């Protein structure tokens, strides 16, 4: 029987500092019988041995054996992880969870609305849009951060801007005095007036703090998005990633196996969340 608790040991190939506390880590997978296959929006359980395990979204695939993870130091394990450098070893098991609904998105317009580190779980999807542009209609990426310095993947912005039928809207809450900023200010929903996707034929994917996703969803519902067309990526405490330890439960749903991506309609039926308020009845 395969033991799904055992992490593979992987070597870090390179690391890149994105912001003051966020780092992108490229890890080399060991030789596997089959290629490591994952869908955009899925996550891995990354171990820093001796410290602990944490769920981290899977980013880009750099080559057959190398994938990236983008991590913010928020606590014990994440802080140790961002301290590591090329050559260090980490543990990895995965991929886990249900990613973004790509089948439903085929041929549709896409709105990706996200804030801060929330762009990380969309990175693999952006790679896919770039590589297989014909699969989707018009794409809008609305990305907000606290300050320009808190934006991640800034080196990719120009690449994304030249994708056909692709608009990138940037916004920050606050511009420090010394910074130059030629884009919008305000929360991410402020750029929604300029969207070029058609609400009637678009899916919206959003990821970020739950309170932000609440504002995004509300704003999109007002603009005519259907509640089955809005998808959120949720975060809960995780231990196993396999629907067994119970920590990630929201009502009867497990974020680790039923999610992390849920439709707004699904979330509305769940208790104990901020996105759609509380309550069990739809």
């Amino acid at each position, binding site marked *: 029987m395969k033991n799904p608790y055992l992490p593979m040991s992987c070597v870090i190939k390179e690391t890149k500092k994105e912001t003051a506390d966020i780092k992108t880590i490229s890890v080399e997978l060991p030789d596997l019988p089959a290629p490591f296959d994952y869908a955009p929006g899925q996550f891995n359980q990354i171990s820093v041995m*001796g*410290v602990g395990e944490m769920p981290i979204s899977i980013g880009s695939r750099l080559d057959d054996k190398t994938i990236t993870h983008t991590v913010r130091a928020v606590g*014990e394990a994440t802080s*140790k992880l961002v301290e590591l450098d090329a050559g260090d070893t980490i543990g990895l098991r995965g991929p886990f969870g249900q990613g973004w609904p790509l089948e439903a998105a085929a041929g549709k317009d896409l709105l990706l609305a996200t804030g801060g580190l929330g762009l990380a779980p969309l990175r693999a999807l952006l790679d896919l849009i770039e590589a297989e542009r014909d699969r989707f209609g018009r794409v809008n990426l609305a990305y907000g951060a606290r300050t320009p310095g808190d934006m991640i993947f800034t080196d990719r912005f120009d690449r994304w801007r030249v994708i056909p039928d692709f608009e990138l809207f940037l916004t920050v809450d606050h511009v420090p005095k010394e910074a130059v900023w030629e884009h919008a200010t305000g929360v991410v929903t402020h750029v929604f007036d300029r969207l070029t996707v058609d609400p009637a034929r678009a899916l919206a994917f959003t990821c970020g703090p739950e309170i932000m996703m609440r504002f995004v969803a509300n704003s999109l519902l007002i603009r005519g998005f259907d509640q089955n067309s809005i998808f959120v990526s949720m975060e809960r405490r995780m231990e196993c990633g396999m629907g067994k330890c119970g920590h990630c439960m929201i009502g009867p749903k497990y974020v680790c196996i039923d999610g992390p991506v849920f439709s707004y309609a699904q979330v509305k039926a769940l208790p104990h969340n901020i996105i759609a308020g509380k309550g069990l009845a739809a």
Partner: protein
Amino acid sequence: MADKLKTALFKFTCCAGCQFQLLYFFSPESFLETLDLLDFVYFRMATSKELKEDDHYDLAFIEGAISTTEDIEKVKKIRKQSDIVVGYGACAAHGGVQSIGDWTPQRKLEETVYPNPLQMKSIKVHPVDEFIRVDYQLRGCPIDEVEFMELIRALAAKKEPYLREYPVCVECKFANNICILLMRQGVLESMCLGPVTRAGCRVACTRNMRACFGCRGPMTNPNIPEMVRTFKGKGFTEHEIFTRFTEYAGLSPEFSEGARAYYERKAPYYERPEWRAA
């Protein structure tokens, strides 16, 4: 291997039992291995090394409660000299047994104990973190060996120790114990504070059919009113309830709430001296 942590252990008002415990611990190999991570430069009970003025410590253990104004100066100095300060034992954490006295006016206490109270310089007892920031707290009367090892290893490895926040009941059930709060009637031995006390002692008391008397202080967010109601329902008197809550950690805001609930007393420190009452 990381360098050893330069460590000092200071004693204030207490019975020194927790210090003694360190020597007494049933010493398995792993315990000695852990102890080996420390370089004690000051530990009165175990070494003859003298305290050096203005030394610097990686780690300072403070045992005991603060009960004189000089103590306050001393702990403040220790804080300045040390990277990590660990409160060591129930007295440092919550005042310990002697904190029972805090519920009686100081003058009355002194008159009872000393022939010439006007010469006394002591104040009411206080937990150490009343005066200085304490980084970690080893709770309990006495401290627990496994928890001690966890803390030291974590500090040596520069990571957070895994100290449990949940109540004693969890460990009690892990230990397959009968619940004495429910099963034994009418005796003080059934007056168990386990549902509101923080775990980590590996149920030293309930394992032996004795009620938990809360030596490790409150868990995070305990339900004190319900604990009081439960005791009352079992027929315990107001005084018994008061005594149970104040035995070791009555100075914690949580347990002092329990102590006050049925015993019409004010919290410690707010007791108005009798001479001003009239």
